């Protein structure tokens, strides 16, 4: 029996470029299943994958950390323990999880950090403001020294969980570093998530409850997204 490969070829071309989504994911799976052990399907898939893999070679090479190969070689080969971080493709989730773990370890550094934040805000009186966006939604604008062209705002609805952060002209935090957002609740900094600006733009939605937060702060942290702040805030905002 001769099978029609029209649909499967089109979807495989998209899939190998990483662009398949929506209903077509299921359509392709269904087609593949219908074709069973299909040599032509494999030939199409491998051919497109080979082509896609070559596209990267159109780019100019980028310098890579000279010690990376040695670090990889030095990493134990054994299987990760059951509770270890998930492998490879969970970078964002790993950072978010580390931020969440911060809830449990922040107490130890809370007092010191709160003092830093209070000092930062107190030394710049009148630099924070709250503007009504709607009868219910609030927009809080962050301020900070040395970040004149940068703007960072948080939108939230009092009494409801969730907040959205939006930044523009945010400077690059540096190689291997990210911005980490903190909510100061009862003097305790609670991690709100880590984010890297893209072309100076930040957009981050968090599920955290802003309800009891007195202040917000932003620090520059290692890309691992530490559970507790390790640097002084570069921006802050007063909520109450």
């Amino acid at each position, binding site marked *: 029996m001769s099978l029609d490969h029209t649909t499967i070829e*089109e*979807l495989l*071309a*998209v899939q*190998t*470029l*990483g*662009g398949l*989504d*929506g209903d*077509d994911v299921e359509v392709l799976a269904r087609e593949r299943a219908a074709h069973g052990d299909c040599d032509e399907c*494999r030939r199409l898939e491998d*051919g*497109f*994958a*080979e*082509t*896609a*893999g*070559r*596209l*990267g*070679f*159109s*780019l*100019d*090479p*980028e*310098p*890579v950390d000279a010690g*990376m*190969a040695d670090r*990889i*070689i030095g990493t134990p*080969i054994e299987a990760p323990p059951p509770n270890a971080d998930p*492998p*490879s*493709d969970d*970078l*964002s*989730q790993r950072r978010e999880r580390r931020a969440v773990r911060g809830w449990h370890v922040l107490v130890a550094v809370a007092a010191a950090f709160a003092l830093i934040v209070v000092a930062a805000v107190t030394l710049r009186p009148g630099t924070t403001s709250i503007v009504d*966006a709607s009868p219910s939604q609030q927009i809080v604008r962050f301020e900070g020294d040395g970040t004149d062209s940068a703007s960072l*705002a948080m*939108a939230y609805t009092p009494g409801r969980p969730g907040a*959205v*952060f*939006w930044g*523009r002209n945010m400077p690059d935090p540096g*190689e*291997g*570093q990210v911005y980490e957002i903190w909510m100061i609740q009862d003097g305790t900094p609670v991690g709100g998530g880590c*984010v*890297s600006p*893209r*072309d100076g*733009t930040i*957009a*981050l*939605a968090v599920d955290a409850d802003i309800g009891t937060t007195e202040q917000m702060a932003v620090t520059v942290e290692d*890309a691992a997204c530490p559970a507790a702040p390790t640097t002084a805030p570069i921006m802050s905002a007063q909520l109450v």
Partner: protein
Amino acid sequence: MGMTDISEARDRDLLQRLRDRDEEAFRGLFARYAPTAKALAKRVVRQPHLAEEIVQEAFMAVWRNPESYDAERGSVKSWLMGMVHHRAVDLVRREEAHRRRAEDSIPDAIHEVADHAEDVVQQVGLPEERRIVRSALDELPPDQRDVLTLMYFEGLSQSQIAERTSLPLGTVKSRTLLGMRRMRASLEGLER
């Protein structure tokens, strides 16, 4: 796979030696492909430190499990780049989901559309393979090249491309297929 040249044979030899935990073989493969892998990851995720993480994870996977390479299915270099690209796109999609959620909630007054206009390649004085791949891309009809570029280098899905370009989804898919067919035909004679 059809034509297999000295370069590909050397890559396969390095992979074979990796199965015996040959550190020099790993260093050889790393030196050969990590810079291009970094370029690809950086092009997709646009963050140098994230690109570096992606490269490290991809090569870690190679070091830990070189057996996952199947010589019957393609070249070592395409296999490697596929791993890097897959990770980069996954990361972009997750962060895009966060970004989309954020943008949906942002008042119009502070909403800003990012400018993604960028050329794929522009330089001269290139190694032969780089030159040929660029040439093949350049020879694509612009509408096909645009779709391939948005999908592969920008990490956009077919639906996102349709939305961004206001093209019907079917047109995005058909242009992708035509572009990939052309690229495949152009590159089939390229040294592996």
